[in-house]
């Protein structure tokens, strides 16, 4: 009998677009019609497929069909036509903006073609609530291999040789960390998974914990075996309810199968993992603050002059890695370090998961080999800028990262190249900005985020960020003076050097990189008193180019202040007295007729 399997994406993005209803409806209808035809249908809810922009996604195997933006009402047609008769429903296929046509399989789109999935290998392919599906795809084989065919030293050497570096942002060599920790004969030792992803716009770790929780458990267990630890913690931020749920479920199933707990797989090795729910402080993603939080203290970092591998959780040797790092471990053990080394650049091996967001056509979760250029990321995988506007910058590395300008678009993305450009890899958030983004406003946004999220313990970070934010706010409000820039730079260096933890040390990055790549924009705000991107209300005025205006009236329709007047057949005009500078008119005009004025007239 022929069988078809339907995979309904139930990652957070698709769930928000009602994919659970799609799943239920498909399941109901598949059962209803099953009796009538010779097609056995299995409907599965999977983790995030990555192309959140086009969700909810429904994949059908073995036909290799992928439907996008599926609604519960489409279920009947999918069951009747595709599942029962193998027909393709054209209107539900993904429209590829590069190829300018609809494609049958999602794998035919540029978004997926340029990717290489290691950490995300199972996500979207399995039901995360079912450990058997993980095992069918080779899950827990690496753990068996480590326990029965390798010594702890072999495991560490393999990870060292692979060149894997911490995916949480720091990029510290994972194998070296394990090696150092294994040398301390001070027990108990702990293994921690950092799942406190807090960067605005980042959802890599979330998707892994939601879509493939077992890979994290397997990775941690392998590490525990190599450093001789018996207790692990997974720190998950409390907002990630689905991740908490799926992880808890996976832990229980792993215990039932003897993959966790006492005497794992009869090897004599004991290891168990607890989940700790984070309270939602960004700073608790910093490793030492995270450990404080697990201990039940206020989440404040400590100086890392003595590393956590020596004195970490409760003062004991501890290995802490990020979710994505753990997800790479089983694959490296199974396929070997030589295979892993063959991917990536000289000093950054393997792949990196990014959450690609901002003004690109295809937003979502992507995994690319290290060394892929930003241009490929933005224009091929991302499909270019929305509305084909002009590219301005990409922001990498979260709030503590930096902005990279157009002249560095061909930069191969890896730990070292990003650092050289003044930004950083961070945990992998990539925000694409177009010409309608004011870079000072961007720096101000990140500093205001950090001013609230700094733990507030040390003077440099708490007071420094607060004052830098004041200066930037003055500049955006048109009150900036030239001396401010000098003071701003001086403060940046003090905060960078004198802060206690990584949060403070990297907090000036958004300011330093915008000062470096977009200094002219600062001058425009301070000297010419205008915001070239037309964002800062005090420094912005719009006008309508009479020659370009087609008199369609769309701008007037979108103006919330009724500041745009005009008649059909005549060019429209803006009443600057009423204008609230929201920019809706610019964004809605299809003919580029609305412009940011060169002179603000102040």
């Amino acid at each position, binding site marked *: 009998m022929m069988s078809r399997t339907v995979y309904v994406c139930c990652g957070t993005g698709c769930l928000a677009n009602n994919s659970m209803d799609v799943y239920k409806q498909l399941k109901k209808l598949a059962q209803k019609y099953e009796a009538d035809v010779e097609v056995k249908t299995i409907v599965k809810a999977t983790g995030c497929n990555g192309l959140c922009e086009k969700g909810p996604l429904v994949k059908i195997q073995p036909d290799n069909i992928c439907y996008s933006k599926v609604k519960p009402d489409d279920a009947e047609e999918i069951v009747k036509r595709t599942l029962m008769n193998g027909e393709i429903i054209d209107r539900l296929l993904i429209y590829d903006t590069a190829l300018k046509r609809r494609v049958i399989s999602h794998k035919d789109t540029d978004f997926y073609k340029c990717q290489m999935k290691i950490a995300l290998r199972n996500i979207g392919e399995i039901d995360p609530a079912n450990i058997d599906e993980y095992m069918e795809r080779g899950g827990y084989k690496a753990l068996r291999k480590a326990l029965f065919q390798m010594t702890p030293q072999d495991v560490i050497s393999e990870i060292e040789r692979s060149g894997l570096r911490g995916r949480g942002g720091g990029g510290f060599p994972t194998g070296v960390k394990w090696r150092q920790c294994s040398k301390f004969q001070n027990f108990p030792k702990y293994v921690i998974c950092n799942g406190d992803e807090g960067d605005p716009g980042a959802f890599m770790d979330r998707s892994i914990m939601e879509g493939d929780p077992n890979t994290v458990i397997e990775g941690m267990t392998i590490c525990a075996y190599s450093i001789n630890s018996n207790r692990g913690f997974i720190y998950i931020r409390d907002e990630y309810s689905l991740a908490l749920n799926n992880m808890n479920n996976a832990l229980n199933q792993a215990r039932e199968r003897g993959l966790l707990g006492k005497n794992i797989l009869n090897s004599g090795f004991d290891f168990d993992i607890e989940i700790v729910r984070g309270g939602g402080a960004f700073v608790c993603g910093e490793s030492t603050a995270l450990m404080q939080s697990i201990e039940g203290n206020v989440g404040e970092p400590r100086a890392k002059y003595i590393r956590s591998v020596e004195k970490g959780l409760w003062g004991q040797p501890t290995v802490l890695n990020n979710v994505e790092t753990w997800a790479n471990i089983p694959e490296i053990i199974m396929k070997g370090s030589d295979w892993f080394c063959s991917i990536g650049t000289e000093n950054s091996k393997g792949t990196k998961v990014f959450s690609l967001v901002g003004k690109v056509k295809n937003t979502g979760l992507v995994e690319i080999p290290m060394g892929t250029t930003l241009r490929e990321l933005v224009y091929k995988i991302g499909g270019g800028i929305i509305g084909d506007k002009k590219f301005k910058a990409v922001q990498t590395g979260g709030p503590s990262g930096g902005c990279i300008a157009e002249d560095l678009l061909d930069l191969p993305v890896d730990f070292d190249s990003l650092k050289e450009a003044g930004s950083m890899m961070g945990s992998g958030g990539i925000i694409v900005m177009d010409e309608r983004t004011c870079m000072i406003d961007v720096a101000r946004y990140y500093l205001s985020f950090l001013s609230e999220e700094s733990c507030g313990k040390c003077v440099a970070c708490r007071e420094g960020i607060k004052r830098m934010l004041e200066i930037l706010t003055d500049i955006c409000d048109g009150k900036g003076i030239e001396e401010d820039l000098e003071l701003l730079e001086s*403060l940046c260096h003090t905060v960078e050097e004198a802060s206690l933890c990584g949060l403070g040390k990297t907090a000036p990055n958004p300011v330093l990189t915008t000062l470096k790549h977009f200094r002219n924009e600062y001058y425009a705000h301070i000297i010419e008193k205008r915001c070239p991107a037309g964002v800062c209300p005090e420094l912005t005025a719009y006008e309508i180019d009479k020659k370009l205006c087609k008199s369609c009236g769309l701008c007037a329709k979108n103006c919330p202040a009724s500041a745009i007047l005009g008649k059909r057949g005549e060019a429209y005009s803006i009443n600057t007295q009423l204008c609230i500078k929201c920019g809706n008119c610019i964004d809605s005009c299809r003919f580029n007729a609305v412009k940011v004025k060169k002179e603000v007239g102040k």
Partner: protein
Amino acid sequence: MKIIIDNIECEAQKDETLLQIARRNDIHIPTLCHNDALPGLGSCRLCVVEIVDKGRRSVVASCIYPVRNEIEVYTCSDKIKNIRRNLLMLLRGRVPNDETIKKLCKEYLVPDRIKFSGDKDEHCILCGLCVKACQELGASAISTVNRGITKKVTTPYDEPSAQCIGCGSCAYVCPTDAIKIEEKDGIRNIWNKEFQLLRCTRCGKPFATKEQLEYNREKLGEAHVKLLCESCKKAIIAEKLKDIYEKV
């Protein structure tokens, strides 16, 4: 092992802090949040120094930096002076009328007019020494709450704390005298809580709270806690010593 601080060779033990070693050798490093009895905060950052460890230069907080290698240390390079000047400028922005900070600002050449302004009645620099003192003494009545720019030191929900014994240790260790203790008619008011003061059995001066005495009794045992103020305790010991020496 030996380390070099400002070109002076200093003897050092493994894991001693740089500040300890510097102070032993009469090398001045300014601090605000450091107290020998309550070390390890590292929050004011004023004690930053430059170190060169195996050729690598970095800035570290000397009060918490444990020495493990034979390093070179520079306590007042231009870079360090600049950092301290900026930190003090930031602190003055926070506590514009605090004398301790003003004095340090003068020492580190912070200009009289700065861009930043703050609450003229504020004296707390959020160093956390008070919280640590309260914790170490066992009462844990105060704590830092919130984070970032809204951080402050207070009792739970800003209400009078059931735990507070009114001992005043927090105020005693505060480097900027930010914690106010009011005493009037035998009543002490601290952290919005009133305490009856007990009188010294020798001189009759009100000196400690009832809660404090009870706490000490519980901790040390009845025999060790007497109703004597600090100066009377000293006077009695001095008399005892006098007796001993006279008899000898």
